[in-house]
């Protein structure tokens, strides 16, 4: 406990420093001040969420194998991992609350979208979340309490559907911010190079009025119920959001990514237990490593396939993001041409070509700003993008190499290349695999979010237009980041200690060492 004291003192001093910093006076500065805590909050949430969504895909196959093969070790593995799953769900729910409040309180203008475009996904998500809560509790409490083991497994399956649906619906809302599906040619009217965003299910007059009002009033327009009601319906078909092609691909790609992260993290934890050699349960640890590594491998291959589809969606609907993440200024690139258009001689429109079309926009300065921002962000975005690609490629190599566990030929190849049997390679590489899976997932999400700059809702709404009118003081921002950091640390500590051993045991060990 005393270890925490220097950190708390340091935190206090840093807090005093931030208390002396100036308060933002413009909505642009306010949005910039709010961004760090939002980004950190989302990543902390994503850390726990990736486990909460991905682990069911490790737990349920393990339990199913245990039931089919009448193998207690697979059941034991499923039981152990389900504790981690429960803790990550708990911390996911806590950090989700933080993100939820961050959205309605800090980015309060987003309530305009919550009341219209996000309405259906969020209402459906409530039911998914409810399913998740009830069935998680049922699943955890009914281990060894049901005579028919498949009935227990079925509870887990419903839970898996609940957690994946919950993720899918939140991703659907996020995808709408990337490609505002159902707005028809509206985005194209502002960003002329953009394609039509699906059918026109919106009240274009009202949305154009909002588009013109937001830069003048900021989110304060929402404080006037009369103004909002005078606009009439914004969206005629609230279900259109569910048919966004971006949402479908994003859901598949993101959920597969969570499976990869969860599976390789499980493999890493059990490898650690194996290599440490505690408890004489090495055979059990090794079996779980092999199993979870296999799930990670299958997930990796599927993620790469869905990642290709994701890239095509970005190319089709967010061409500027595509250029920035590829680190490509347009023109001729045989490889990119072959992959994206099956034509190595394809000439890609350049930034200058797009800038030339800005005159067709109903808001040329915004069109030009979008191009300018894409050029500015290119070095960061392409670095992140290639970090994701390289990590994914390494995971693919690891996955293929792990086939040596089952194929003598591949085992021989692995031995020849790294002079280790595949089993050892899998044990050691599981740590790197977990690391690269996290890097790939984090970098991929950063590309997705940074790539839509300078827009919050692509082509329609900017961050400074939805930020709260209340100043986000440096001290407030620091305080929230501190809370986010502490929540993360508590969560990681809980994830490690609760399923493994008690702190008391560690304290006893320390006492023994101290003599």
């Amino acid at each position, binding site marked *: 406990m005393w270890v925490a004291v220097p950190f708390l003192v340091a935190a206090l001093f840093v807090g005093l420093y931030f208390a002396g910093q100036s308060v933002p006076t413009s909505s642009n500065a306010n949005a910039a001040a709010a961004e760090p805590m939002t980004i950190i909050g989302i990543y902390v949430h994503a850390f726990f969420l990736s486990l909460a969504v991905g682990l069911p895909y490790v737990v349920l196959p393990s339990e199913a194998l245990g039931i089919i093969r009448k193998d207690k070790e697979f059941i034991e593995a499923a039981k152990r991992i389900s504790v981690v799953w429960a803790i990550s769900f708990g911390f996911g729910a806590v950090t989700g609350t933080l993100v939820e409040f961050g959205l309605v309180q800090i980015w309060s203008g987003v309530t305009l979208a919550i009341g219209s475009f996000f309405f259906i996904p969020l209402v459906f998500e409530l039911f998914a979340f409810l399913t998740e809560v009830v069935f998680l509790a049922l699943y955890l409490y009914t281990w060894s309490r049901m005579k028919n083991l498949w009935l227990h497994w079925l509870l887990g399956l419903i839970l898996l559907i609940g957690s994946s649906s919950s993720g899918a619906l939140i991703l659907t809302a996020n995808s709408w911010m990337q490609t505002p599906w159902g707005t028809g040619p509206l985005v194209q009217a502002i960003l002329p190079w953009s394609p039509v965003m699906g059918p026109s299910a919106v009240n274009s007059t009202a949305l154009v009025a909002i588009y013109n009002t937001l830069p003048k009033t900021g989110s304060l327009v929402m*404080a006037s119920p009369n103004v909002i009601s005078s606009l009439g319906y914004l969206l005629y078909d609230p279900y259109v959001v569910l048919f966004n092609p971006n949402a479908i691909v994003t859901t598949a790609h993101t959920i597969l990514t969570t499976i990869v992260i969860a599976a390789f993290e499980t493999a890493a934890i059990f490898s650690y237990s194996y290599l440490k050699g505690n408890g004489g349960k090495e055979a059990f640890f090794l079996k779980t490593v092999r199993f979870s590594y296999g799930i990670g491998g299958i997930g990796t291959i599927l993620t790469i396939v869905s990642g290709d589809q994701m890239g095509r969606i970005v190319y089709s609907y967010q061409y500027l993001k595509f250029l920035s993440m590829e680190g490509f200024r347009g023109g001729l690139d045989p490889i990119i041409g072959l992959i994206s258009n099956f034509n190595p001689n394809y000439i890609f429109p350049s930034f200058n070509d797009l800038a030339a079309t800005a005159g067709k926009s109903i808001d040329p300065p915004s069109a030009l700003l979008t191009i300018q921002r894409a050029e500015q962000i290119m070095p960061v975005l392409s670095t992140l993008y290639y970090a994701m690609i390289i990590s994914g490629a390494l995971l693919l190599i690891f996955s293929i190499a792990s086939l040596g566990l089952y194929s003598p030929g591949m085992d021989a190849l692995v031995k020849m290349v790294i002079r280790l049997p595949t089993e050892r390679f899998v044990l050691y590489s599981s740590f790197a695999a977990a690391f690269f899976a996290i890097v790939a997932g984090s970098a991929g999400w950063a590309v997705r979010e940074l790539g839509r700059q300078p827009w919050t809702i692509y082509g329609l709404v900017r961050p400074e237009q939805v930020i709260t009118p209340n100043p986000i003081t440096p001290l*407030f921002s620091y305080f929230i980041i501190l809370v986010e950091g502490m929540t993360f640390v508590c969560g990681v500590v*809980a994830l490690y200690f609760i399923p493994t051993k008690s702190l008391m045991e560690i304290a006893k060990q320390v006492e023994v060492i101290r003599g």
Partner: protein
Amino acid sequence: MLAFTPVSWMAFLLLGLATLVHITFVNLVLGFSVIIPFTEYMSYRNNDEKLMEVAKRTFKYLILTDLVAGVWGTWITVALAGLWPTLTYIATTVLFVPITVALVGILIAIPSIAIYWYTWGKISKGLHLFVGCLMAFGALLVPAGFRMIFAFVDDPVGLNEALKGNLYAVFGNPLYPALVGWSWCGSLAMSALVAAGVYAWMSKGSVNGEGLKEASYFLKLGMPFLIITAILGGYFFFSLQTASPYIFAAITGNTTIAQYNFLPAFLLYPILILIAGGSALGMYKSAKQGKFSRPVSLALVIAAFLMVPLAEAVDDAARAPYMVIAGSAGLPANAFANTMIPISWIIAELAVTIAVVVMATFLLGIYFIYRVKTSPITEEPL
């Protein structure tokens, strides 16, 4: 007379239902979050193993009630943002500080509940109690923040000042202190008396002490808070007369000002307080003779369980058809309800029906979890 539109009707009912379930269970969470670490402390102080067992057993109820409260809390947030977007915007902008306080409370309370449970007996007593204190502190912070929303919609003090940047002006609301105090003491009284009634019921009137000691302990905890709750409730009632005359008129049956008469429902509140107080006192006296009357303990559980949610429901419903009260009138719910998407009467009625069915199924699910949890472990089939 102001009429509801389909969307405002649906929004009013969905928000009301979710709030009612949430408030009912969150009061138990709040009360137990304070009572349990206190009980743990008392068990150490008196070297009383039985009290420790009581704390642990009560904690399991806390987890289940927190599940219910948490889920419906999320429903409230989505119902507010989705169905009352402008109201949510105004609330989060004007009540920025109190909502942040509540959020910090949630962030402290939920992880500390998990840590408290999983570290029980695994870390030193002092450290575990410290985590318990954190849990109690976080739980108390939540109403300290959120009660401002309720005070604000009853009497929107500080609205203009907050929109000009003075975010602390809302703390001048005369209803706020009474409401927070009432929430704190009400939840403690409710939780302790419900627990007392349950233990007394489980004792089956026996004189062998099974459940007797626990019930007496909770009675001693709950009764002082019941008295304070009654006093604060009275103070809040009289504050309404000047701060929110429309609500005062509605709950006193003055239909020349209010559109609906909530006097009969409101009268139930002091009746429930009297039943809870009377049955608690009766049980306390009979406990000294080593016995409990089961009907009296049942009356205590019912009265204690209903008194706080009933008062909440009456205060919230008395605003109808207004969403925010300003003196003897208010801003109608229709003005704040979502007008951005088409919602017909059929959709509205269907949504409310589905929500009621889901709510009932969810509560049944929680009951089933409780049953499963207390059922014996079967033989390992493999």
